[in-house]
């Protein structure tokens, strides 16, 4: 029973398996990370390597801590007064929780895309240009124009918005807004992009566009994506981590996780037994 080899999930994962390169360099590494929200122990000793040039998917039932863990990777949890992080997380071997680490620079290197599209209530151009401007990445107006165009092209949005760059970013459709947010994130030239359920507020067509975009971005960034959609994890990721109740239950190559999970809990979850 429970032979997964015939399910579509496993098939999808296998079809995309050729992209997985097991010898990729490690970009970020977490060692025995614990996160507390006041009294609540939200993350219980997670150790994981995020590989360069790959998409890593975090899956797991609601409240399992995957978003919390994602937010520790660029220290967004710092903004929550009650949150406390223990353990070590490194970016290129450098401890991001060390006292010498500049949080502002860290967040420029480890960009983030949120669950709900959250463009600034400014023009499309300003949305993309804001990051490069505060980090001083453009020396001139023409530099900035080039960065904005490149970022929008990478986010697959340029052809749709090139004639209305001065329109408000909030006036676009949800899918366009989310791609604008991705363009905004890549405009500061990050090394890692964290995506917290980026498609949960989008329709299937917009979701397909974002997934396509993630595919295209894969070669240049380490991408971490939190998702509730098993199909999506199978389609876009090469590594999958399954979280449950604050524990990292299983982590490995996506096709292995979906065809031959080692843990019963993983198997139960991806077959839809709970979650």
């Amino acid at each position: 029973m429970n032979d997964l080899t015939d399910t579509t999930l496993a098939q999808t994962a296998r079809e995309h398996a050729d992209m997985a390169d097991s010898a990729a360099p490690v970009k970020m590494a977490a060692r025995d990370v614990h996160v507390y929200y006041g009294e609540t122990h939200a993350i219980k000793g997670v150790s994981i390597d995020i590989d360069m040039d790959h998409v890593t998917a975090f899956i797991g039932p609601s409240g399992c801590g995957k978003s919390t863990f994602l937010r520790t990777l660029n220290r967004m949890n710092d903004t929550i007064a009650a949150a406390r992080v223990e353990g070590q997380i490194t970016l290129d071997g450098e401890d991001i929780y060390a006292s010498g680490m500049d949080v502002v620079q860290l967040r420029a290197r480890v960009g983030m895309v949120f669950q709900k599209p959250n463009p600034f209530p400014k023009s499309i151009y300003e949305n993309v240009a804001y990051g490069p401007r505060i980090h001083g990445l453009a020396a001139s107006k023409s530099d900035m124009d080039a960065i904005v165009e490149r970022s929008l092209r990478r986010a697959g949005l340029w052809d749709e918005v090139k004639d209305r760059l001065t329109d408000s970013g909030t006036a676009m459709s949800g899918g366009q807004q989310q791609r604008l947010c991705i363009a905004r994130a890549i405009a500061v030239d990050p090394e890692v992009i964290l995506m917290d359920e980026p498609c949960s507020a989008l329709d299937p067509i917009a979701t397909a566009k974002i997934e396509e975009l993630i595919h295209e971005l894969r070669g240049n960034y380490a991408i971490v994506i939190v998702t509730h959609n098993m199909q999506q994890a199978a389609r876009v990721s090469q590594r999958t981590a399954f979280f449950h109740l604050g524990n990292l239950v299983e982590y490995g190559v996506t096709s292995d996780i979906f065809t031959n999970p080692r843990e019963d809990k993983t198997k139960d979850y991806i077959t839809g037994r709970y979650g």
Partner: protein
Amino acid sequence: MSDPLMPELPSAGGGTIAPRQPTDWTTDAMRQRIRKRYARERRFRRLGLVAVVMSAAFLAFLLVTMASQGLGGFFRTEVALPIDFPQTGIEVDKAALDQPGADLALAGAGLENIVGSAAIAAFGDYGPNVISDNAWLTVREAIKHDPSILDGRAVIHVPASAEIDRAISETGTPEAEAAVTKLQAENAITEGFNWRFLSASDSTDPTQVGIWGALKGSFFTMLVTFLIAFPVGVLAAIYLEEYAPKNRWTDLVEVSINNLAAVPSIIFGLLGLAVFLGTWTLFGHKVGPLLPRSAALVGGLTLALMIMPVIVIASRNAIKAVPPSIRDAALGIGASKVQVVFHHVLPLALPGILTGTIIGMARALGETAPLLLVGMRAFIATPPDSLTDKATVLPVQIFLWSDEVSRGFVEKTSAAIIVLLVFLLAMNAVAIYLRNKFETRW
């Protein structure tokens, strides 16, 4: 063998569920409930309408009363007074009339008596009562303006007395009524816009008073209040919302601010008096008063203390209402805390902050009690030229005039209220314009 993708649903509680009983929506009880509901809706709508109509009626009553009583204050009756200067025997050195001592020289030449005699000559024994007590000041200005009139007979339009004014607008004394009838027959009476009311300051004579001094005093005071209360209030709100740790101390600060907003304004007057105008002994030296009495600076500082809690509370609410997703978005691409606040949070909160500031400033503009305590109720006959000059403000001026015994001040008081309301409207209009501008930009 169960299908792995279709797990069995747990059965609900076990046991059989009773068959559904259809609800009868047409019973009498049901109908009565519906009727009651409609009646309640109608009653509530009517009450709301009554409330709106009542407030509109009060507002209309206020405006109509003010306008009918006060508009007369903007106009004044003038009497054409013929004076035959050579006959009066006035002796003035014409060459000295553009010198600084000209006012004194003309007063010394007995101009006041000359004007009185001219009135008697022109209008009979009642003449001196026809023209204002200060009519000679108008004559003096006319002579200084054109000394050549001293060579012959001239007709000068001087302000009429308060009695004549009243005899024209309503009913006056029989003598005044008679004089008016006679003057009108001679075409010697004219009605003109009272520029003096807008350009002069306080006076003991109601025909000579003006609002300019108080208006300028109000402007200076509001300027100080805004420059202190707005930045300090907004910065305090930003710190409390975005930076301060949430603990017992910040709770205490929050409670204190809420309490301060409810403190009666006269208490702030006492505070201003004690802090800005008080004297202390420090290390055996006398210190203070820090600031001059009766000045717009002190009044402004006192009112700033009063409205700061209002601005802090409104600003905190506006900052709280900025969606957290915007903060996350900015932090997520590496904006520092200060950049998040000044590039994103503050511009989005600004319309709300401005609304709170308008309410605070409007309250400060109409405030009298605290200013009485810092000495701004003095008789100020010269408009202030700087923040440290002695000054008074519009509401205090209204309060002072409403206390005067002379009947002429009634009209002036209402006129001053109109000026205060116009000032208030202008201030609010500017603030609302700014608020809308920031709202559409985002």
